[in-house]
């Protein structure tokens, strides 16, 4: 019986019951409050974008280059085209290298020292501030070439895509159970075939998500373009010439003293956001119906 006494007294009502209940309510309130606080700026931003940007959207905005200072009108057509070109170059560079590196880390070097070092390096690269990337690419390409170019801007953005894609590819590949790989090997499928047709294919929704996220992220980047693509007031499709980009143009307009340019900046932002929202939405759709969910 004496030993029994040492136990928590059974039918004793918790002495700290009220304190526990109070803590429970407080925590709930705090969580609800912070959610509301976080939602506020977003709602505000969208409200302003629509309110200020929508009114300036017209056909000219998409088809015209900017008007010279002092003239009203003009658009951001060249910037939209420039962004498309830059992103095209970036994707062509970043997606294959990123995915291949991800495959190496997850499949071939798994657990090895080299793979771990590559993973760490990718993390480092991922953390490199975009402005530093701009400076580096400037030193790497612009200085030797002696002029700004769409190519250098694309390279800067492409490099920024690589680590994101590598890491998501790796993570998605690792989510593919070992048993699926064994299943492929057990059927007598060669390794390269198994990696491409089974593992990568199984992980493809996740890998696509990673690519889209990387794409969305660099689509809005301004800093690395400041000293690489540089910007351009005119139509240009040459990858050896400076080129305009949507975020770059927005930056220029936003920090200018002209109301008309402010108006265009809002409109440009709205277009940029819509572009990104659409791609993020697409990502969610792909990931949401992702077949991976069923993989045990």
């Amino acid at each position: 019986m004496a030993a029994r006494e040492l136990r928590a007294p059974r039918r004793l009502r918790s002495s700290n019951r009220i304190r526990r209940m109070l803590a429970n309510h407080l925590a709930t309130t705090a969580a609800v409050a912070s959610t509301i606080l976080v939602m506020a700026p977003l709602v505000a931003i969208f409200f302003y974008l629509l309110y200020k940007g929508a009114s300036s959207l017209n056909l000219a905005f998409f088809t015209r280059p900017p008007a010279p200072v002092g003239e009203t009108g003009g658009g951001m057509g060249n910037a939209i085209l420039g962004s498309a070109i830059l992103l095209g170059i970036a994707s062509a560079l970043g997606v294959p290298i990123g995915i291949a590196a991800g495959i190496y880390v997850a499949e071939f070097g798994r657990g090895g020292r080299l793979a771990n070092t590559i993973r760490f390096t990718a993390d480092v690269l991922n953390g490199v501030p975009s402005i530093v990337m701009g400076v580096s690419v400037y030193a790497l390409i612009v200085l030797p070439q002696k002029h700004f170019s769409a190519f250098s801007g694309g390279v800067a953005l492409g490099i920024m895509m690589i680590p994101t894609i590598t890491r998501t590819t790796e993570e998605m590949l690792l989510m593919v159970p070992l048993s699926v790989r064994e299943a492929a090997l057990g059927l007598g499928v060669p390794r390269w075939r198994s990696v491409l047709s089974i593992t990568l294919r199984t992980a493809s929704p996740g890998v696509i998500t990673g690519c889209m996220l990387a794409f969305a992220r660099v689509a809005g980047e301004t800093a690395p373009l400041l000293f690489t693509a540089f910007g351009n007031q005119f139509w240009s499709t040459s990858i050896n010439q400076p080129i305009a980009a949507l975020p770059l143009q927005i930056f220029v307009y936003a920090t200018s003293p002209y109301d008309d340019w402010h108006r265009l900046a809002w409109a440009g932002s709205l277009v940029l956001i819509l572009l990104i929202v659409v791609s993020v939405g697409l990502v969610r759709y792909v990931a949401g119906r992702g077949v991976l969910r069923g993989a045990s």
Partner: protein
Amino acid sequence: MGVGIEVSELNAWYGSNHTLQNINLRIPANHATALIGPSGCGKSTFVRCLNRMHETNPVGRVTGSVLIGQLDIYTQASPVEIRRRVGMVFQRPNPFPTMSIYDNVASGLRLNGYRNRVVLDEVVQRSLEQAALWEEVKDDLKKKSGASLSGGQQQRLCIARALAVDPEVMLMDEPASALDPVSTAKIEDLIFQLKSQYTIVIVTHNMQQAARVAENTGFFLNGRLVEFDATHKIFTNPRDKRTEDYITGRFG
């Protein structure tokens, strides 16, 4: 039809761990053979040596010979070729999640470059029928993914996938241990059906399962094959004291 397996002086290591020691046994063709024993006794390693899966592990190493039919799998063929002849079913159902049911079953042929559609259709249907899954999935063959099936169906799908390449030997590594009792019973029935046409080697830690499906049973202990005999003999009157102790729960 299946072929017999003859294992001589098989030794296997995981790193410095000598997991299989001097295994000698002859597994008869077109019968089910069960391997039982406590965890870590080497029974899983043993089946993984029969299709050279053991060596996919970087620290796995094997010596000795395994004849499947007349072929010494360690000297006369590449692992990839062996595995086309020796099907394997794993502990957890592992259908390819992004593939449809049809593609899953066809994968063994397709991934090796086979393209004849008519033959593929036939093979898929035959394999699913053999795996007792055809009736349940025939309407969603190309619509549903392998991962959308229930656990028991997934495992039968994996069996169908292994059957599609028409192997001579089927290895099963605890094929029902992740399934509920009803699915387990179905898998057992299936094994019972298949054993007239294939040489089946099944690893299980469920002695009752071994008793139900296999004609012959081998008992592994500490990396050695202690006893190999007709199943009903093992379960009613084993020769070796250690087998009897394990069977009756006097072990350890």
